[in-house]
């Protein structure tokens, strides 16, 4: 079985990371699994973990009163779940629910933040990997707001 260092190093989010940095990250990481329907986290909760999906599918959802939860994005193999751990006050902004059996690497966010603060070079590496994900989610949100497939009249 692969050890955690191998798994972290192979995950697209940390791929190519300097081995010494990788070692620092691994010190905060552990293997987790979620059954279908199990929540990774809930809106408003402390964002004290980030999850790197190895296999599976996770839906990001917002609960709408009187309706079912609305899923606005699904994430799968190779994706990062959760970004709120990077910005104070570190609270989740939505629910994350496994819709398939999902195996992931959970990284202790407090631990990672401390290491990033201690070594800004690592912090910069992490932010450089986080930023493209934020931008692509922002662009996707823009397209969703346009509701391009909807009837323009309605």
């Amino acid at each position, binding site marked *: 079985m692969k050890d955690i260092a191998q798994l972290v190093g192979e995950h697209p989010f940390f791929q190519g990371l300097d081995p010494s940095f990788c070692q620092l990250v691994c010190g905060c990481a552990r293997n987790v699994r979620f059954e279908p329907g199990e929540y990774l986290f809930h809106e408003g909760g402390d964002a004290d973990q980030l999850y790197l999906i190895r296999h599976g*599918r996770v*839906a*990001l*959802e917002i609960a709408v009163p009187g*309706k*079912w*939860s*609305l*899923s*606005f*994005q*699904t994430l*799968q193999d190779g994706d990062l779940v959760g970004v709120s751990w990077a910005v104070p006050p570190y609270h989740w902004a939505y629910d994350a*629910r496994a*819709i*398939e059996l999902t195996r992931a690497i959970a990284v202790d966010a407090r631990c990672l933040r401390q290491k990033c603060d201690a070594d800004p070079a690592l912090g910069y590496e992490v932010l450089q990997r986080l930023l493209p994900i934020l931008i*692509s989610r922002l*662009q*996707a949100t823009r*397209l*969703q707001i*346009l*509701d*391009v*497939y*909807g*009837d*323009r*009249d309605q």
Partner: protein
Amino acid sequence: MPPPDFMMPMPVKVMQRRQELATTWTLDVETGPDELAAFTPGQFNMLYVFGVGEIPVSFSGDPAGRDRHCFTVRAVGPVSRALTELPIAASLGKRGPYGTGWPLAAAEGADLALIAGGLGLAPLRPVLYHVLRYRQRYGRITLLYGTRSPSDILFRDELDGWRRRQDLEVRVTVDHAGSEWPGQVGVVPALVPTLGFDASNTVAFLCGPEVMMRLTASALLDAGLAPAGIYLSMERNMKCALGHCGHCQFGGVFVCKDGPVLPYPRLRGLLSLQEL
């Protein structure tokens, strides 16, 4: 002999009608004379409803079929609404086929990325029939289909059938979904980088809302596809479909006769201009 009057429709009957979605129906109509039965996937017809008006509608059926034409119509305006309300055996006016089709012959030997958004799956469906019939002529074939929500997925049964095939990769995604949806949620352009296209040997056919096509074309270019290998099916107001009425102009392009299927280089520089 006087020249033919291309503005004159031909009466044809509705043979069958199927509800696809809440406001979307597929009509099977008679082809009319044999010489008008053949069409190239991507082409369209002008359909006239008695006393109401006429609109362009793309062929959505099998190009090898000779006994009927399929048109998939969403009720968004008076004519499209009237079309979706036509009962079996009712007559409508039809003229065409018009416009350019998808470059199916030129794409032989290449991988195909068929990327549809919303009702844009309808004009690509004849492509699927064609390439699956002549499967060995093409490399890897991917269908990426995005729509608004799970209840807006067009041709759902057929998609399920295609998904089961080993020789076709089908990805369906929606903009948003309820928690019962087991599939993918996300916008089409965001999925392009995840499909692992062989950029040097992939031809992409895009059909959907213009914004979706524009952003998807950008994502394909970012993925390394050649601009000349990307084709878009454009939509504009049309009154004649002959290049005479002027309504469908998009820059110097007459969408009706130079299009609707156009190579990206012809559209580059125009797509991002507002109110063109």
